[in-house]
């Protein structure tokens, strides 16, 4: 009887062994899931964030730097909070948030570190650092955020922020990950590729508590991070800050360029804000405040705000008429006030005088010659040819087309086309009498302050411009983009600029722009009082100086401040004085601007 029991016992032993070997075969040989799970257990991919490139002004002063900031990381498996109350106090969160956040990170991973609280400031870090020992499982990880030491130039430098879903989808190079930072506006956005640098990746082995146990395969798959390239801006910080102080409390823009290079020396959008508001932990809160402000400080006025050019446009009209040969600058034209409203007295005007007095009726007549070219006897058809030709000229002045400045979203302004009037009035149903207000820069034409500054540069250069730009050089030896290194000719012979510039000189000496007069430097300028149907007129002014060797071209718009000769001309003149002589001697004018009471 016992014989088969002996066999049965032995068979059971062998059977168990066989089951084990087969089961192990399925786990160890047939399945590779466990191998992958094992790598998942021990491998930790550590991203090394590169430092974002710095931005300097043209004199080497820092405009944008990186500041250390600290993220509170947590490894749920190790967490031990003895005293939740003191934890909540230390990190300034309530208990529910703590529990909710903790659940979130726990659901993500128990053994992998996740971010618990983002962007703890340097000051908070000092306070927290000593108490960290009480909270097991929490670590501090250092990163950097943007810092703007001079608090100027907010809209031009822009800001960085966490990448959003649509940007992530657009990123075909697969560079960004969720939670990465990306330049959102201004230089930060335009030069994102140069500034961001290259991320490094380190593969670390970690033990069950997330403690590092050395590099994986001796680091052969690791890459080093490469810091972003530093940029040198064309901005002169001193001028920028001075210009900002002049525009403080006003709504408007200022753009100052070097005519010989197209370099933007100063670009102000008022009202402005401290760019540091949009860096770091308070981003969302501050962004809300800024975007709900009725004066829209986030609206980058110098490149986005569109106004009628006003009388400044008369310069363009003069040059086109001269080039087309419909005007002799010395021809005396009797201009009385019966065609169009005018502040200039009745009388005979040549071009210089017309510019000096900004005679509306003179330019009405000049523009009529331009439009009614006499190509076709039918005034309706003739006007079509005239407008088409005129518009071609105007476009070459970079008007009605967006300047390719290296700040995102410059607006093109508006210069009406033949098809526009066809749409409005019907084909062949409009002629000069419908469009005459274009002659004096009113009507449908719209420009941005940047375009007006560029116009001043064109006049200063007597016929060409460099595309305005705000970055001088990229990296150690880098140059700006090649589009900023070519002359763009506007198709007007340089000789035609002589009478125009003479007229503009008189504007400053004896005309509406007297506030812009500088004793030792010949300033060339033109004011605009931009008709504003919604309220007080806007004050506009463009100028360059000195006359013979132009160093600076400038345009200023101050909204609702009345005559161009007052607010805009004063501000532009002070900035020019500061730029050209290094100091401002005309304290009375400075006080007048700072007081800012221009409407009277």
């Amino acid at each position, binding site marked *: *009887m*016992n014989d088969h*029991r*002996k066999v049965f*016992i*032995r068979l059971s*032993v*062998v059977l*168990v*062994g066989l*089951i*084990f*070997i087969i*089961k*192990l*075969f399925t*786990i*160890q*040989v047939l*399945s*590779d*899931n*466990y*191998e992958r*799970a*094992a*790598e998942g*257990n*021990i491998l930790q991919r550590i991203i090394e964030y590169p430092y974002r490139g710095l931005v300097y002004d043209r004199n080497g002063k820092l405009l944008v730097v990186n500041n250390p900031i600290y993220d509170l990381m947590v490894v749920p498996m190790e967490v031990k909070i003895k005293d939740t109350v003191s934890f909540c106090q230390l990190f300034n969160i309530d208990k529910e948030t703590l529990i909710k956040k903790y659940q979130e990170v726990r659901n993500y991973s*128990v053994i992998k570190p996740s971010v618990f609280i983002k962007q703890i400031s340097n000051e908070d870090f000092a306070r927290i650092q000593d108490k960290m020992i009480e909270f097991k499982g929490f670590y501090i990880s250092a990163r950097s955020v943007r810092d703007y030491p001079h608090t100027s130039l907010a809209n031009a430098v822009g800001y960085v922020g966490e990448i959003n879903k649509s940007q992530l989808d657009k990123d075909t190079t697969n560079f960004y990950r969720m939670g990465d930072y990306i330049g959102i506006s201004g230089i930060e956005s335009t030069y994102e590729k140069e500034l961001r640098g290259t991320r490094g990746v380190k593969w670390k*082995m*970690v*033990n*069950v*508590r997330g403690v590092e*146990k*050395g590099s994986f395969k001796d680091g052969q798959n690791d890459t080093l991070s490469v810091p972003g390239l530093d940029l040198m801006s064309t901005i002169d910080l001193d001028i920028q800050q001075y210009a900002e102080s002049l525009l403080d409390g006003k709504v408007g823009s200022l753009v100052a360029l070097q005519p010989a290079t197209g370099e933007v020396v100063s670009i102000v959008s008022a009202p402005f804000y401290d760019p540091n508001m949009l860096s770091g932990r308070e981003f969302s809160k501050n962004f809300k405040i800024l975007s709900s402000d009725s004066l829209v400080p986030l609206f980058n006025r110098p490149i986005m705000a569109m106004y009628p050019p006003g009388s400044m446009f008369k310069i363009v009209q003069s040059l086109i008429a001269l080039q087309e040969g419909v005007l002799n600058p010395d021809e005396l034209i009797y201009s009385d006030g019966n065609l169009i409203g005018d502040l200039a007295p009745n009388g005979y005007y040549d071009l210089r005088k017309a510019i000096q007095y900004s005679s509306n009726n003179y330019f009405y007549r000049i523009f009529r010659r331009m439009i009614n070219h006499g190509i076709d006897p039918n005034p309706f058809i003739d006007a079509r040819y005239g407008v088409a030709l005129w518009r071609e000229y105007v476009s070459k002045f970079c008007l009605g087309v967006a300047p390719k400045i290296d700040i995102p979203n410059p607006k093109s302004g508006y210069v009406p086309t033949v098809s526009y009037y066809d749409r409005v009035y019907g084909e062949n149903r409009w002629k000069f009498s419908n469009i005459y207000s274009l002659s004096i820069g009113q009507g449908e034409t719209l420009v941005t302050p940047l375009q007006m500054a560029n116009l001043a540069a064109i006049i200063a250069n007597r016929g060409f411009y460099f595309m305005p730009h705000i970055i001088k050089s990229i990296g150690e030896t880098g140059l700006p983009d090649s589009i900023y290194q070519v002359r763009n000719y506007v198709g007007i012979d340089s000789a035609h600029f002589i009478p125009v510039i003479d007229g503009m000189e008189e504007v400053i000496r004896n005309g509406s722009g007297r506030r812009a007069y500088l004793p030792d430097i010949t300033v060339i300028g033109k004011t605009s009082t931009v008709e504003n149907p919604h309220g007080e007129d806007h004050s506009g002014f463009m100028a360059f100086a000195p006359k013979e060797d132009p160093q600076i071209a400038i345009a200023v718009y101050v909204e609702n401040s009345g005559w161009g000769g007052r607010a805009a001309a004063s501000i532009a003149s002070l900035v020019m004085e500061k730029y050209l002589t290094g100091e401002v001697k005309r304290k009375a004018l400075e006080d007048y601007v700072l007081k800012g009471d221009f409407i009277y």
Partner: protein
Amino acid sequence: MRRDTNITYNIDWLILFIYSTLVIMGWLNIYASVYEGGTGMNIFDFSLNSGKQLIWIASTLIIFSIIMSIDFKFYESVSYLIYGLILFMLLFVLVFGTKVSGARSWFEIGSFFKIQPSEFAKFATALAIAKYASQPTFRFSNMSHLLTIFALILGPMLLILLQPDAGTALIFISFIIVFYREGLTPYVLIIGIFFVFLFILTMFIDQLYIILGIGLFTAIAIGFAEKTFKKAVGILIIAVMTLGVTLSFDYFQTNILKPHHQKRLMVLINPNSDPLGDGWNVTQSKIAIGSGRIWGKGFLQGTQTKFDFVPEQSTDFIFCTLGEELGWAGTSVVIIIFIVLILRIIYIAERQKSRFARVYGYGVASILFFHFTINIGMTIGLFPVIGIPLPFLSYGGSSLWGFSILLFILLKLDAHRMQILNR
């Protein structure tokens, strides 16, 4: 018949060879499981588990010499004494023992030397059972003999359960294999297996359905059986007993079984039910073993065990280190070695002329078989996590001593088998 008293001639060298192989493999694996790489670590470092284990291994040589030099008849004659002594120690440890992770299983003598009496209860019980069963008058059919021999198992089992150390207590069930070999009716085994099945059912199925099921089976059985009153009553009695057992299991599970035991059983069925909590051990253990693939990552090259993903890596989960570093090749070889060892012990048991030696031999085989089955089964997810060591491989002095003594006494008895006269 040759009667060679030279012990070296009669000793079973195959078993001794397997023993040495396993012990050395264990030692290397213990080093691998504590190895942290590159820091000038030394397998002989006495502050490491591998160094300590080496001391224990060395000490087994002394144990071997002592056991071999004592007269073989001594073991039979002092069986009860040893058993009694161990029972006393098991009682003693409940009062004076040191509590380690919730169980009072250890005597601590100094700070270094710890001893776990339950490890020694195994060979002591094997001796006592062998002694009792070898009485010429012993019959399993004799109810008082049957109860006595079961009591011999239950004594240490209960004391160990009180520590509480359910895992080690469970090992004493292995003696049922011995009883089966020695003539215990197989119905005990069948009923035992039926009850285990019922036990698992009660864990996962609502009590109500089980009761309904029992009722249904009873009705069918009565319907098909010969329609005699006696048969019907018999079936009914069985049904009522089953019902009683079911209810008591349910009571046991809800009121006596600790939650962590319940969870361990649950996790066995579905380890993914709680992969970070109670399923952690099983999941990580399988990941470690599975990641070894065919040939393993190489000695000291394992990551899962080294970086503490696997718990208790040098003791209960030593098999993981082996699986990860030596792969399926390594695990298969170890399993085959164990099977050969157990079969060899059974072979040796069968060739004994004395019933004492044979019963003892079967006891040795059964204990090793249970340890082997439960330990490896738990690491690969076939058994619930029961904290018992893998014989000869796991780190631990008491366990190594216990298994060594268990095996050496058998070798001693076997070496003298020719000196036993046929009865």
